[in-house]
């Protein structure tokens, strides 16, 4: 896909560098970035997590999500980076960046991509804590966040 950069790997990423790539296209004046980091649990017992994925499917699933965002909004460059493997406290996990001529499109597309990444892309987190290792279970709130885009789309389709 043109103007789309999707990476799934163990290495870290540099938000400043990713921003510069997104902003380096003179047609698009609005750039939104999202970065997710490993944070301590409320219990304070988290030491690290391991991100497992389904390698043959991951980039395909992310590309399909970005493609859906491009159909909904006029976008410039789009970058999605998701790390896998073992990540310790305060490390970066995920980056989504979107450029657009319109700020509301850039915000909406970045949030859309994150909501669908959370519910449709084949990643699984295992948390390593002082009490043992636990697989993270999916959140209902994430599924609801993804579903409201369908409701938005239905409303728009009915208007048209």
């Amino acid at each position, binding site marked *: 896909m043109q103007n789309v950069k999707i990476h799934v790997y163990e290495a870290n990423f540099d938000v400043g560098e990713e921003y510069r790539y997104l902003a380096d296209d003179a047609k698009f004046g609005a750039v939104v970035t999202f970065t997710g980091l490993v944070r301590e649990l409320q219990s304070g017992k988290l030491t690290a997590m391991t991100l497992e994925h389904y390698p043959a499917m991951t980039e395909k699933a992310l590309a399909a999500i970005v493609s859906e965002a491009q159909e909904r909004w006029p976008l410039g460059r789009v970058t999605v980076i998701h790390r896998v493997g073992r990540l310790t406290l305060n490390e970066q996990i995920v980056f989504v960046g979107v450029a657009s001529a319109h700020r509301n499109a850039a915000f909406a597309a970045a949030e859309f991509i994150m909501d669908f990444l959370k519910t449709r892309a084949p990643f*699984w987190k295992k948390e390593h804590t002082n009490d043992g290792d636990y697989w993270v279970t*999916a959140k209902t709130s994430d599924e609801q966040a993804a579903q409201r885009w369908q409701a938005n789309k239905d409303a728009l389709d009915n208007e048209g």
Partner: protein
Amino acid sequence: MIKVLFFAVLRERLGTSEVAVEDFHGSTVADLIQHLEQRSLKWHQELASQDVLAAVNQQLVSHTYVIEAGDEVAFFPPVTGG
């Protein structure tokens, strides 16, 4: 032949990341789950969960999807990346 993959907690609990199933084309994902459940009580318990997601050839599908010979089928729990 169909290649069946398992990920995350499902992979750990079943103790395997991949099995091969013979002569299963033309049936649905739900049929394949029922077939695999017969392996043992543990397989039955793990795969009977409403929560098991399925992908065929790396695309999420519903349990009514019809499998073809040579397909790669994957089963996994709801995703938790991001």
